[in-house]
């Protein structure tokens, strides 16, 4: 049952990422919606791996806020369909996919040969719950937590300033 879910989610995630990345869909809003679908299928992966809080966070923050922001900008700027290059740039055009494929193969080979486990062990009770994450976050990762809230303030100020018409 879980293997079936894993296969379905893999197909959905890789398929929607391919739609975002590939040349089949030129309309940028549709690519953004495909990315939202990808994010939700990744949340499905997180559920499958017992990371409940992270899965909810992914849906609420990533799919529910960041993607809506991207969709906003796309719709407000009325971005046109992406124009493909008239002149072919053969070297760059084939270097990109080759590098990406090489990277994927290297990573898969590294994982398979590096003694990676074949099965997941049973998680401890309370794994992935809000309580477990909260305990870690507010004890061991307290300083990064405060630092990232500072980063968010800086990002907010930066975003508002950059998008202003007149300073």
């Amino acid at each position: 049952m879980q293997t079936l879910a894993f296969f379905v989610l893999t197909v959905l995630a890789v398929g929607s990422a391919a739609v975002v990345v590939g040349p089949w869909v030129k309309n940028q809003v549709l690519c953004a919606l495909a990315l939202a679908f990808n994010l939700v299928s990744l949340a499905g992966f997180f559920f499958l791996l017992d990371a409940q809080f992270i899965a909810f966070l992914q849906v609420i923050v990533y799919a529910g806020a960041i993607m809506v922001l991207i969709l906003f900008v796309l719709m407000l700027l009325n971005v046109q369909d992406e124009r493909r290059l008239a002149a072919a740039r053969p070297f760059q055009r084939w270097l990109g996919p080759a590098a990406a494929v090489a990277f994927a193969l290297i990573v898969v080979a590294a994982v398979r040969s590096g003694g990676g486990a074949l099965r997941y062990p049973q998680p401890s009770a309370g794994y992935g719950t809000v309580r477990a994450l909260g305990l870690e976050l507010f004890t061991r990762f307290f300083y990064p937590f405060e630092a990232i809230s500072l980063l968010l303030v800086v990002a907010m100020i930066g975003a508002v300033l950059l998008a202003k018409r007149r300073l």
Partner: protein
Amino acid sequence: MAFGPQSVLAVSAVLFALGVLGVLLRRGAILILMSVEIMLNAANLAFVSFARQHDHAEGQIYVFFVITLAAAEAAVGLAIVIALFRLRGSTDVDELSLLKW
């Protein structure tokens, strides 16, 4: 369950490769940003897989921070895209060629 860490990491690698492809091949600025988001998500998947493998919440904390950082980066990146759009009238990155030789 019958799938293991290797399968999940393979999926993560494939997603990351797709993200790299997107950054290299796409012309719209926002599409490039979206490809970067795909890469970040692939890294998140790898983190969650490792956290589950070692039964420790640390990997999930990193995912928490990555998601927050992605939000901040998307906000600032989109603000830059808006500023560029005001200048150029389009989000095409090939038009940003003032510093080219």
